[in-house]
C-alpha cells in the first residue's frame, strides 16, 4: 500500500476562486492510501515545494498527488521536488484542477466537486505507480553518412567541423553525386563544379572524415547511440592506398567501348576509369563487367603501365565493421526511367533526351566538351522543345510516373532554356508546361528573365506525342491558352523527367527500421517540427531522400541534420524516457502485432527458453522492447491481444483505475 500525500494548490485565486481548496484537501484525505493532505497558496513556489519535501520526509510518503495547474506546466517541477526529497520522480501525479477545472467552471460547488473527482483519479493512479528509472546508454561519438552527394558532403563537413568523426559511404567510385554532373546552377548560374569540387576536396582532406567510396551499407544493428554497421567495400581491383590517380591506365586500357555512366551513356570510357577529373577519391576503378583480364584472364595492360603497381586483379569485396552513434541517410534521387513514356519517343530517337543528359551536353567536361550538338548526328540543333512534368504530377498515371511535383524541373528547365538562348541566340526554344512553379528566392525573377529577356516561348499545355520524322522530331501538343493544337518540328526534345528516391533507399530503410512513404521517400519524425529526423531515434535525413529538393534547400537541410547529429553526439550518455513499453515475456506469444505498429522499430523478437510443464523446456518467440528506442506512445499495448505488452507510467491497470475513479 502506498503512503500518499495530497497537495492542493490555490494558485492564488486562480484555483481557489472557484474551487474550495480546503474542502478538496479534506475530502481527499479519506481516499485509499492517502496519509497526508495539505493546501497552500502557491505549491510551485519555493515555500510550496519545501512544504512537499518536508511532508515526504515527515510522513514517509511513497507517492504524491499535486492538485494544481496542468502537468504540462509543472509536472517537471514537482518531479524534481520529489526527487530532491528522495522520492522517485515518477511517483508524482498531477490533478489538473486549474486549466481543466477552476478556469472553466464558475460555480464553486461544481468546481469543488469536479476537483475532488480529479484528485481522486490521480490518487487512484498513484496507488498503482511504481518507481521508474530512465535507462542510460552510452553514445559512440562517430557518425555515418550514407551517400556522398552534396547533401552527404555538407552534413559530413558540418559534423566533422564540430569535432566528431564521420564516415561517408558512397556506392559510386567518387563522391559528388548528381551535383557533379550538373553544368550551371539556378538562379545564379554559377558553375556546379566550381562550387562543389572545393567541398569535395575539403572532405578528402578533413582529418575527421573517412570516405568509403565504391562501398555500400550491408547491415545495420543496434539503436540510437550504438549502431553497429557493416560496410561492404566493393572490389575496384585497384589498391586505394597505392593508386596516385595519374590516369595513365585509363588512357592505355584497350577496352574502349564501355558506356560512360557519368555522361549517362552518351559517350564511352575505358574498362578502367576515373569518373571525372576532380573525382574524390581520385582512384581508378576497374569495371569488372568489361575488363578482359577479369573476364578472360587476357590483357593486363593496366597493370603493366601502372608505375605505382596499384592494380590488383585478385581483389575481393571487403567488409568493414564500425560503430556509430548516429546515421544520416543522404541517398539522394534519380530521374525516373523514361521506358514507360513511349509517346515521347525517348527510346526511338537519340535526340529525345532527359534534362540530366542535357546538363552533360552543355557541360564543358561532358561528351561534347560543352558544345550543344545533337546526339544523333552531332549537328547543332536550331529548334529545341522542352517538355515539363514528364512523370511528375501524374495523378491519373501513377503506374508510369509519380503523383508528386518533382519541384526542381521548372527552374532547371528555365535555366536550360536561358543558357541555350544565351550561348546560341540562333536557337529557338519552346517550353511546354502545366504550371510554372517558382517559389524561391530570385526564382520567379529568373523564370521571367528566361521568358521575357531571353525570348523563350512558354506554352501552357501538354505534349501528347513526339514522333521522329527523318532527322526531325514532330512534337504534337496543345496550347491551352490559345486553345489550339500545335505541331512543332524540333531538332531536339528535352524531357524534364520526374525524380524519385534512389533505389537503394528502400532496402536501406528496412535496415535502419526507418519508415518511408508510399513513394519511398524517408518519413520525417514530424513533418513540421522534426523535418530532418526519422521517427527512428538516431536516424537523420539529409537531402532529396526525404523529398524533392534543389541545392540550397538540400544544403540547408544537410546542415540541419548535422546540427541534430552534433546535438546527439555531444552527449556522453542518452537518458531515455522511462515511460516505455515493456513486454511480459511469460505472456507474449510472439505474434508480431506489436512490432508491426511500432513507429520506431523498437520491438524485436528473440527465441527464449521457458520452463514448460513437468520439467520440460519450451522455446518461444517473444517480443523485446529496446528502451533506448521506444518513445512510449503505447500503440503496441493495444495491438497486443494478451496484454503482455504494457506501458510503464501509463499501465493498463493505472488507466483503468483512473476510469473507475472518474465513473464512481
Amino acid at each position, binding site marked *: 500500500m502506498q503512503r500518499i500525500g495530497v497537495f492542493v494548490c490555490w494558485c492564488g485565486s486562480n484555483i481557489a476562486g472557484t474551487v474550495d481548496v480546503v474542502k478538496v484537501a479534506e475530502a481527499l484525505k*479519506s481516499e*485509499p492510501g492517502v496519509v497526508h493532505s495539505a493546501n497552500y497558496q502557491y505549491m510551485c513556489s519555493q515555500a510550496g515545494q519545501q512544504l512537499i519535501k518536508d511532508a515526504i520526509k515527515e510522513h514517509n510518503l511513497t507517492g504524491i498527488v499535486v492538485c494544481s495547474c496542468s502537468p504540462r506546466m509543472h509536472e517537471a517541477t514537482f518531479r524534481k521536488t520529489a526527487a530532491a526529497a528522495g522520492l522517485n520522480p515518477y511517483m508524482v501525479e498531477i490533478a489538473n484542477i486549474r486549466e481543466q477545472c477552476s478556469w472553466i467552471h464558475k460555480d464553486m460547488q461544481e468546481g469543488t466537486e469536479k476537483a475532488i473527482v480529479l484528485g481522486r483519479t490521480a490518487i487512484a493512479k498513484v496507488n498503482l505507480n511504481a518507481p521508474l528509472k530512465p535507462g542510460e546508454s552510452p553514445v559512440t561519438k562517430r557518425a555515418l553518412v550514407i551517400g556522398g552527394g552534396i547533401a552527404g558532403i555538407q552534413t559530413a563537413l558540418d559534423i566533422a567541423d564540430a569535432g566528431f568523426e564521420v564516415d561517408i559511404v558512397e556506392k559510386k567510385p567518387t563522391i559528388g553525386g548528381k551535383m557533379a554532373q550538373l553544368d550551371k546552377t539556378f538562379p545564379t548560374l554559377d558553375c556546379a563544379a566550381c562550387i562543389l569540387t572545393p567541398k569535395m576536396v575539403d572532405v578528402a582532406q578533413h582529418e575527421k572524415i573517412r570516405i568509403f567510396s565504391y562501398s555500400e551499407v550491408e547491415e545495420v544493428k543496434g539503436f540510437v547511440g550504438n549502431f553497429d554497421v557493416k560496410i561492404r567495400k566493393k572490389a575496384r581491383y585497384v589498391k586505394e592506398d597505392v593508386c596516385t590517380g595519374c590516369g595513365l591506365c585509363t588512357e592505355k586500357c584497350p577496352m574502349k567501348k564501355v558506356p560512360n555512366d557519368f555522361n549517362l551513356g552518351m559517350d564511352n570510357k575505358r574498362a578502367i576509369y576515373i569518373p571525372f577529373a576532380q573525382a574524390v577519391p581520385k582512384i581508378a576503378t576497374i569495371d569488372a563487367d568489361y575488363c578482359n583480364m577479369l573476364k578472360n584472364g587476357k590483357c593486363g595492360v593496366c597493370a603493366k603501365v601502372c608505375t605505382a603497381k596499384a592494380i590488383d586483379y585478385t581483389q575481393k569485396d571487403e567488409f568493414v565493421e564500425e560503430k556509430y552513434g548516429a546515421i544520416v541517410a543522404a541517398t539522394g534521387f534519380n530521374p525516373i526511367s523514361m521506358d514507360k513514356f513511349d509517346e515521347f519517343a525517348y527510346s526511338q530517337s537519340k535526340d529525345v533526351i532527359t534534362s540530366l543528359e542535357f546538363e552533360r551536353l552543355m557541360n564543358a567536361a561532358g561528351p561534347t566538351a560543352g558544345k550543344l550538338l545533337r546526339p544523333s548526328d552531332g549537328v547543332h540543333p536550331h529548334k529545341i522543345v522542352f517538355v515539363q512534368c514528364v512523370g511528375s504530377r501524374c495523378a491519373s498515371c501513377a503506374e508510369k510516373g509519380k503523383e508528386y511535383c518533382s519541384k526542381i524541373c521548372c527552374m532547371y528547365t528555365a535555366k536550360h532554356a536561358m543558357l541555350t538562348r544565351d550561348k546560341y541566340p540562333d536557337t529557338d526554344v519552346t517550353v511546354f508546361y502545366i504550371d510554372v512553379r517558382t517559389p524561391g528566392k530570385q526564382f520567379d525573377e529568373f523564370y521571367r528573365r528566361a521568358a521575357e529577356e531571353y525570348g523563350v516561348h512558354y506554352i501552357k499545355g501538354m505534349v501528347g506525342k513526339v514522333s521522329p520524322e527523318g532527322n526531325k522530331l514532330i512534337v504534337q501538343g496543345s496550347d491551352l491558352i490559345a486553345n489550339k493544337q500545335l505541331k512543332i518540328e524540333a531538332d531536339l526534345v528535352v524531357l524534364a523527367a520526374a525524380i524519385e528516391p534512389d533505389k537503394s533507399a528502400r532496402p536501406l530503410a528496412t535496415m535502419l527500421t526507418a519508415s518511408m512513404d508510399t513513394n519511398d521517400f524517408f518519413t520525417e519524425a514530424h513533418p513540421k517540427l522534426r523535418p530532418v529526423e526519422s521517427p527512428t531515434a538516431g536516424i537523420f535525413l539529409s537531402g532529396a531522400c526525404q523529398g524533392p529538393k534543389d541545392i540550397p534547400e538540400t544544403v540547408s537541410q544537410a546542415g540541419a541534420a548535422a546540427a541534430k547529429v552534433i546535438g546527439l553526439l555531444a552527449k556522453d550518455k542518452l537518458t531515455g524516457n522511462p515511460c516505455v513499453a515493456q513486454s511480459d515475456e511469460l505472456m507474449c506469444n510472439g505474434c508480431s502485432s506489436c512490432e508491426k505498429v511500432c513507429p520506431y522499430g523498437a520491438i524485436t523478437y528473440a527465441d527464449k527458453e521457458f520452463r*514448460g*510443464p*513437468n520439467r520440460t523446456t519450451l522455446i518461444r518467440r517473444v517480443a523485446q522492447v529496446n528502451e533506448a528506442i521506444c518513445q512510449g506512445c503505447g500503440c503496441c499495448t493495444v495491438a497486443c491481444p494478451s496484454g503482455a505488452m504494457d506501458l510503464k507510467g501509463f499501465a493498463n491497470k493505472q488507466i483503468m483505475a483512473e476510469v*473507475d475513479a472518474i*465513473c*464512481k
Partner: protein
Amino acid sequence: MRKISLSNLDKAFALIAENAKLYIPVDGKGGASFKLWQEGVKMSDALNTVRSAKDFFFPQMETLMEFKTEGKNIEIIDNRQEKEDFVVFGVRACDVKSFEILDRVFLSEPVDSYYASRREKGVIVSLACGRPSETCFCKTFGIDAANPAGDITAWKTETDLYLLANTEKGEKLLSAISSITEDCDGKAVEEQKKQISAIMEKLPLSNVTTEKFGAGKTKEYFDSPAWDELSSHCLGCGTCTFVCPTCQCYDIKDFKTNEGVQRFRCWDSCMYSDFTLMAHGNSRASQKERFRQRFMHKLVYYPDNNDGMFSCVGCGRCLTKCPISMNIVKVMKTLGGKEND
C-alpha cells in the same frame, strides 16, 4: 398416484405459481432451458435442457456478501438471495440424481449455507424420460430413467400427466393442485416404465459399465499411459464442466463496485489452466493432468470419499457438447479396456 389431463397442465402451473416461483423447461434458441413459468409459457418436449438443473441450487454465479467502504470504514453485508420457495418442474432422472451427488459435497460439514437454503426452498418435480437419446447412459450409474426420484415423480403420456409424491414437500405441492387432479391407478405408468426400460436396453451406450472403476482405483489408473492420447487434443475449455450436472467446483472472487466490494462465487473448471494456480505455479502443469483430474474425480476420487458413489449421472450432455467429442464414455472405454467395447 394422481393424474391430470395435459390440457389442464397450464391450470396446474398457475396454481403452483401462486405460492412459489415455478420453473419449467422451455424451448428456445440453442435448445431447452428452465425458465420462470408465466401465463402462456409452454413446456418443452426436449429430452433435456442444455444446462443442467444444478443451476437452481448451485448457480453459475452468486453473491456471497458485500463490503461497503465509507472513508476508511468497512461494513459487511450479508445479502443471501433465496427467500422464496420455488418449484422446478420436469427434472430428468439423471439431473435428480445429480442433486444427491451435490448434496454430499455441499451439505456435509461444513454445510454450505447458500446451497442448503436453496435446497430447502426448492421442490423438485421429476419427469420420466419417454424418449431417451443415443447419448444417454444413466443406466450405467444405476439410474432408472423410467422412475426418477424427486419430491414428486411425474410421467407424461400422450394425454395425461401422472404424479406421485415421494416426500412431504411433494405431498404438499400435490395437495395444492388436488382440485384439478384425480386419483388413478398406476397402469399407464407401469406400461410406460416397461417401454422405457426396453428402449434403455437398446441404447448404443447401454453396455458401458462402471465395473472397472470406483473407490481404491487411483493407483491403477493414475499413471496409465492412455491419458496422454485421451487428453492430447483437449482444448482446455470448460464446456464439459459447465454443462455437467455434477461438477461442483467454484472460485470465490471479489468485484470492486463503486462503493465497495462484492464477494461472489462462480463456477470454475478443473479444465482451465489457472485452476489450482498457486503462488509457486500450477500443480497441474499440463492439460493432461487437468483432464485426468476431471475423470479420475468422477470415476475414482469421488467414489473414494462417498461410499463408492460415482459423480457422473450419464446425462450425455458432455457427449453432445464437447468441441472435440472427447468424453467420459471414451475415457471409460479406453481405460477400462476391451470388455467395455
